[in-house]
């Protein structure tokens, strides 16, 4: 388990600039066997912070990072009841893409892809963003129409996205069964070349390290038990390690978001469902792109290590349990073998589950709430990893300026009362 560092051995750089990783450093330490510096430091909990972020997943960490980097706000604590990156941010299948269905969604996720493209350099951390291409298969006329719709919306926003036929699909992914006499023949696909996968742990650790070096404190095993308000304004939080005074709380708690907003009496349109994934033993790299099939409820990609990573739709009933189920593995195996029959003898190594805070429209809930000083970055469902950078950037801007950035104005909590839903189900229910 990753627990940052012990305060005894860690020496915090005083310059405020991260000790940079470099090829020379690897060589030098290879020769001298000198220890690597700790990625982030452990602190005592202070009595007060300017901003308290609940949840040390990619969203909370990115928000802290951009608060410090873009706005110079560093008196910030990121609290997590468990360990950094132990929620959805360490359990997802790391698919990054921007080929959504609504103009609001496409614009927003595209900004995230752009930030991901520059992230390794920005964080000085190898995040292994591999833009290998993303294919959403269509097995019937209705899906072909949705793909055409998505492609047109995408193109209007300047996104590289188009509909291709079965023959072209077969050329890009030779192992896929594109023959006509299968139960669910592949008619075509939405092809999105900039989509791909990333090393999610590196993103989490890179943001944590960057934020830590600028003065942000990351507190693991620090559970928020209640939030104090006075006359409708946040005044502090009670944690398992003591009380903190603050006027600004950001909830970035994904699957647990309802439990946090309940603390201030803000009701959320969220239902928590487990989402499962599984991985096979590693084999020689043969799968060049990310493959999603909505009709077969399955998606797959191959890591650089050679493992196949599979996922599907959420478990059918609400739960906060993170246990895998046999039903999931059975369904997965049946469906994936329809697509790629040749992997029949591969063994599954592991399966796991994470919690997803599902919204009615498959879009997030970002911004202010009726309680002053309580802002949310939640509703990330099954699709929020790709949004980490842009959410961190925009939420930091919101906290620093007190104004909702244009890019996220469509995702406000009051859209549900006003009936302004941003329907992304057609682009997010199976392919996350």
């Amino acid at each position, binding site marked *: 388990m990753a627990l940052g560092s012990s305060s005894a051995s860690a020496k915090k750089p005083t310059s405020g600039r991260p000790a940079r990783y470099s090829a020379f450093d690897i060589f030098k330490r290879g020769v001298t066997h000198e220890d690597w510096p700790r990625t982030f430091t452990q602190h005592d909990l202070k009595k007060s912070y300017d901003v308290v972020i609940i949840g040390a997943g990619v969203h909370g960490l990115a928000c802290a990072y951009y608060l410090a980097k873009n706005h110079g706000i560093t008196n910030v604590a990121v609290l997590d009841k468990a360990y950094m990156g132990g929620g959805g941010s360490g359990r997802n299948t790391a698919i990054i893409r921007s080929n959504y269905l609504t103009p609001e969604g496409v614009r927003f996720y595209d900004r995230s892809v752009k930030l991901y493209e520059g992230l390794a350099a920005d964080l000085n951390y190898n995040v292994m963003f591999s833009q290998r291409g993303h294919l959403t298969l269509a097995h019937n006329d209705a899906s072909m129409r949705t793909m055409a719709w998505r492609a047109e919306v995408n193109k209007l926003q300047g996104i590289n996205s188009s509909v291709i036929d079965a023959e072209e699909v077969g050329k890009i992914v030779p192992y896929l069964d594109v023959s006509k006499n299968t139960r669910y023949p592949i008619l075509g696909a939405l092809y999105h070349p900039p989509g791909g996968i990333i090393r999610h742990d590196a993103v989490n650790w890179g943001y944590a390290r960057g934020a830590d070096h600028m003065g942000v404190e990351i507190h693991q095993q620090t559970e928020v038990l209640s939030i104090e308000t006075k006359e409708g304004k946040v005044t502090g939080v009670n944690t398992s390690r003591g009380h903190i005074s603050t006027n600004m709380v950001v909830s970035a708690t994904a699957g*647990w978001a*309802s*439990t946090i907003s309940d603390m201030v009496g803000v*009701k*959320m*349109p*969220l*239902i*928590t469902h487990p989402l499962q994934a599984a991985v096979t033993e590693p084999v020689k790299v043969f799968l060049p792109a990310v493959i999603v099939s909505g009709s077969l409820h399955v998606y797959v990609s191959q890591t650089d290590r050679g493992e196949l990573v599979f996922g599907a739709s959420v478990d*059918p*009933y*609400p*739960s*906060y*349990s993170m246990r895998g*189920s*046999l*039903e999931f593995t059975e369904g997965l195996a049946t469906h994936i073998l329809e697509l790629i029959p040749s992997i029949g003898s591969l063994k599954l190594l592991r399966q796991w589950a994470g919690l997803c805070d599902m919204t*009615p429209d498959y879009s997030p809930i970002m911004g202010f709430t009726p309680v002053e000083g309580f802002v949310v970055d939640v509703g990330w469902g099954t699709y929020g990893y790709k949004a980490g950078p842009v959410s961190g950037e925009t939420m930091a801007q919101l906290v620093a300026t007190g104004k909702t950035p244009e890019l996220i104005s469509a995702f406000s909590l009051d859209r*549900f*009362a006003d*009936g302004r839903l941003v329907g992304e189900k057609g682009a997010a229910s199976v392919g996350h």
Partner: protein
Amino acid sequence: MIIIDCPHCGPRNSTEFRHAGEAGHKRPVATTDPAEWRYYLYVHDNPMGWTRETWFHGSGCRKFFSAERNTVTNEFRWIAPFGQGPAHTEESGA
């Protein structure tokens, strides 16, 4: 594999059932305003822990029934024909 003890059919695999929602989630009167309709449609308690809910035995007796389940462990405390749980009131959602 989770087994659910249907009050009409006995223990069956959970794949035969559909979760039909939180108990006490009452539909507003037809003449209500759009905001209340939307609240009814979209907002949920989503509790972490014990909760009363309605289930549907879709691949069995096709009847709705009531239950109290722990959403962290998926353990059922009781399962009863619709509306008949211990001290069950129509309003209680928790």
